[in-house]
């Protein structure tokens, strides 16, 4: 592999220039001419209510209004994994901000004015915001029809309750495992809801033309999945996949928030409502917070046992998820966590319960880390504490238990090759583990924290990637994929893969954002799987193109294909030193024979990858028997912090993060993923959380009070360590890295705070305020008042969930 020319090189992004000169176009930047209409959403002011009537007459009378759309016009359900949502709330609303109607008008101001004139009468119903209440026997049911929803086969809802899904993973004998343990620690941790905060809000333009074609320009991580969800939901109107086209230009940040389908379904039907007119729907910043997806809150009860020589013997991990009003995507987050909540430790005796619970809060969904960020805070805090209880260094404890190739996973499969021990060792060395940094002042104190992490893509077993490749007359080429560049640099990395095979320089390869009519299929750009999956497809397409090139040369020149090779955009021959045929001479127009005839023609190729070795089918009581995950990416991270004892303020001096990427196709872009992911992760640890009032209204749906770190709020130093234990089925050995860099950031901070102050905080976020109050003997959760940082209202330690009705 050492002779690789492009793979492993820090090449500049192929789309770098268009971004800084203002040429990169996002959905909102596309021009649609004077026919363009604009939509404004009418939203529910209640957390739970019946819709008695909707009077649109006054709104329709506002000059400039074209149409008002409600569930009456499109009474259909949709959902990625479970069809539990209506396009517009029908009969009842289930969270504050839910869409009840939309006004389509000539201009945004008119739509906004008219939306205020839509009169909706509601009858309020009892609502549940708190998990404990949602699980009680007499809880108001968020979805009385739960038993009738179409869903994927690996979800297990409990009709007649608020439990939308319950993933159980069982292995070994949990009782025996704890009996073998010399030390057992049990405790509860809570993680609030978070928001993605991509700077571009969701936007979609929908055009249903007079030929019956529905075209959507969508700011999406998932154009093909969107088409599929639209086609399924709109089938009653006679629309099918071939009638629907989804085009995704540049996306201004995703982080999971633009995966699947959320507000886009409204965009789709608004186009249908006004044939011939493109309609634009763009989320306000507020809507972006409460009506796309949020990261779900979780309450985790962990019991972990280990022998005195440091071997983990048993884990009992209960995860209670506040999934919100709809779980069509969020339940799969719960599922993913439920299969992997051991962390990267092959513990022999396992009981995991991951329970997805409906509440009357905005819908939860995918967010960078997909369940792992959520459970790792508790788990890796707990591992540190158990180590302390045992009198063992926490890094050593992790090293002893670190998972290795061939170890058995919680669901019974085998672990892929990976370098967790090396990640632990190198991270510990780089952070100077065991050595205290000298504080910068008398009221300052320093501390270090450590954590390991892992994550697998959560994808259906038949989630496929594919690629088309075609040459141009000048020997440059186009790669047509539907993996999305949401900033991570996928287009550049795919160009590198094609370049490596075909020797065409990266800057002569165009890889553009997708169009479902023209580009090859991709399931979705989620789960950090596209470098791997789409990369395999591109590599296969490039190899097919190379083969076709050699066939053409063979047919024209009679050279043996096995003697041919590519170098510097030329075909060369091992047996004929002087033979050099530039690609540009024949990849479109073929090669002329002495008689004037031509051989060959345009070189086109395709590639496809589907992980045929996976299966989501397993025993619902134990999760044993299937192979739901393709592979795990692992790593370790550590932090050195300084805390001001007077204010509680945390200065992050240094973060080290080692991740085994299998093969670093572009180290510079991986560095970008590490730095960006660490800052996003630290934000959830130190600053952010979503707040609701007691009626379920989101209080900080803006960047004034849900603020993300600025350039002055970042660590002084972030050191990425890239490890490369190849993934055998990955392109050049690569596996995913995008999400992983965010995952360990909360526990490293929690552990460092403990190391600095002897203070164990068990609820996120770990704000200066919470730290400072705790130092002064005040529990933040007791004084925070009616602005809830969490959806867990009582004392988490005393949470005992009644699931009586559901057994």
């Amino acid at each position, binding site marked *: 592999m050492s002779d690789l020319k492009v793979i492993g090189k*820090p090449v*500049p*992004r192929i*789309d*770098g*220039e*268009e*971004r*800084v*000169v*203002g040429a*990169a*176009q*996002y959905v*909102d*930047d596309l*021009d649609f001419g004077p026919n363009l209409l604009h939509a404004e959403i009418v939203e529910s002011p209640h957390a739970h209510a019946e819709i008695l009537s909707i009077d649109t007459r006054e709104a329709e009378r506002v000059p400039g209004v074209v149409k008002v759309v409600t569930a009456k016009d499109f009474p259909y359900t949709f959902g990625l994994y479970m069809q539990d949502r209506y396009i517009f709330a029908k009969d009842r609303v289930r969270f504050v901000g839910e869409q009840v109607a939309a006004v389509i008008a000539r201009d945004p*101001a008119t739509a906004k004015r008219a939306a205020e004139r839509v009169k909706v009468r509601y009858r309020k119903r009892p609502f549940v915001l708190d998990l404990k209440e949602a699980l009680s026997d007499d809880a108001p049911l968020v979805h009385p029809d739960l038993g009738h929803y179409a869903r994927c086969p690996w979800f297990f809802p409990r009709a007649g309750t608020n439990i939308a899904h319950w993933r159980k993973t069982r292995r070994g004998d949990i009782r025996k495992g704890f009996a073998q343990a010399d030390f057992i620690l049990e405790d509860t941790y809570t993680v609030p809801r978070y928001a*993605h*905060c*991509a*700077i*571009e*809000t969701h936007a979609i333009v929908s055009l249903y033309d007079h030929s019956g074609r529905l075209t959507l320009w969508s700011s999406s991580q998932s154009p093909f999945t969107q088409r599929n969800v639209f086609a399924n939901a709109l089938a009653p109107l006679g629309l099918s996949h071939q009638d629907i086209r989804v085009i995704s230009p*540049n*996306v*201004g*940040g*995703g*982080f999971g928030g633009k995966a699947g389908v959320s507000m886009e379904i409204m965009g789709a039907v608004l186009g249908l409502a006004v044939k011939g007119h493109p309609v634009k729907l*763009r989320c*306000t*910043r507020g809507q972006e917070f409460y009506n796309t997806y949020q990261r779900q809150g979780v309450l985790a009860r962990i019991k972990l046992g280990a022998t005195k020589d440091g071997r983990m013997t048993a884990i009992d991990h209960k995860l209670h998820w506040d999934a919100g009003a709809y779980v069509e995507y969020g339940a799969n987050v719960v599922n993913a966590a439920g299969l992997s909540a051991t962390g990267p430790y092959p513990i022999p005796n396992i009981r995991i319960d991951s329970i997805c619970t409906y509440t009357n809060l905005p819908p939860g969904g995918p967010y960078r880390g997909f369940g792992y960020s959520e459970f790792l805070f508790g788990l890796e805090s707990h591992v540190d504490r158990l180590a302390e209880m045992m009198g063992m260094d926490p890094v050593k404890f992790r090293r002893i238990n670190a998972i290795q190739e061939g170890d058995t996973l919680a669901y019974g499969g085998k672990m892929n090759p990976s370098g967790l021990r090396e990640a632990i060792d190198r991270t510990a060395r780089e952070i100077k583990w065991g050595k205290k940094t000298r504080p910068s002042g008398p009221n300052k104190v320093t501390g270090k924290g450590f954590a390991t992490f892992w994550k697998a893509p959560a994808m259906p077993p038949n989630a496929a990637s594919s690629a088309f490749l075609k040459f141009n007359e000048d020997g440059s080429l186009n790669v047509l994929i539907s993996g999305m560049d*949401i*900033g*991570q*640099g996928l287009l550049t990395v795919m160009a590198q893969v094609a370049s490596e095979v075909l020797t065409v320089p990266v800057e002569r390869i165009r890889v553009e954002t997708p169009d479902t009519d023209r580009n090859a299929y991709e399931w979705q750009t989620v789960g950090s799987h596209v470098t791997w999956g789409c990369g395999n497809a591109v590599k296969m397409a490039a190899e097919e193109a190379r083969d076709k090139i050699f066939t053409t040369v063979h047919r024209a020149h009679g050279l043996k294909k096995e003697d041919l090779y590519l170098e510097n955009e030329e075909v060369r021959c091992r047996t004929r030193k002087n033979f050099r045929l530039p690609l540009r001479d024949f990849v479109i127009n073929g090669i002329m024979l002495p008689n004037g005839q031509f051989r060959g023609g345009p070189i086109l190729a395709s590639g496809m990858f589907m992980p045929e070795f996976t299966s989501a089918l397993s025993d619902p009581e134990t999760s044993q028997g299937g192979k739901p995950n393709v592979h795990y990416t692992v790593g370790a991270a550590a932090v050195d912090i300084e805390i001001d004892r007077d204010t509680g303020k945390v200065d992050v001096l240094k973060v080290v993060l080692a991740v085994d990427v299998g093969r670093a196709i572009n180290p*510079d*872009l991986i*560095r*970008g993923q590490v*730095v*960006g*992911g*660490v*800052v*996003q992760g630290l934000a959830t640890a130190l600053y952010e959380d979503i707040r609701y009032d007691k009626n379920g209204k989101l209080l900080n749906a*803006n*960047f*004034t009070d849900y*603020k*993300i770190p*600025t*350039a*002055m709020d*970042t660590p002084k130093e*972030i050191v990425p360590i890239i490890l490369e234990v190849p993934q055998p089925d990955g392109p050049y050995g690569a596996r995913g890295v995008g999400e992983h860099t965010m995952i360990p950031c909360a526990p490293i901070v929690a552990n460092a705070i403990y190391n600095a102050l002897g203070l164990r905080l068990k609820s996120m976020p770990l704000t200066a305020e919470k730290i400072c109050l705790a130092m002064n003997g005040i529990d933040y959760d007791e004084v925070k008042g009616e602005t809830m940082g969490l959806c867990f209202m009582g004392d988490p330690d005393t949470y005992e969930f009644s699931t009586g009705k559901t057994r």
Partner: protein
Amino acid sequence: MNITVKLNGIAQTIAVEPSDLLIDVIRDRLGVKSPKYGCGKGDCGACTVLLDGDVVRSCLVLAVEADGREITTVEALSMEGPNDVQRELIRNNAFQCGFCAPGVTLAAEELLRRNADPTEEEIREAVAGNLCRCTGYQQIVEAVRTAARSRRKKAGRKRRPRSGRKGVKS
């Protein structure tokens, strides 16, 4: 009412409503799309433009307020190819999704026009009003620092002595 603005060097007269926001007029009426809608409250900086050379939030400016004034968007910096700041931002892979890039680039350009030799702290301060969720800012700051150095070199300027921070010195 009619307003006349000079947008990226070209004077244009158009009719606007008093309630029209500058961001919408630049984007939807004058067709220049680099200022983006991010929050509508002046919190994120995605809509940054230069108004008579100063960075402002175009979402918090009425179009009528720009009458008779000069507006510069990031497009104007690269009329003859990317300028020095832009080149460094490209070379450093400074942006990921790129949505914040026009605003950050203008904030950096404005900084270097008024301060040829900014400290790292001053660079961070200058772009602190431009939120970026992707990058963690590190590569942006490195690029601006490198660009400042090369611009000084080109102008034959020396580094200034260091003291204090944030431009407030006593």
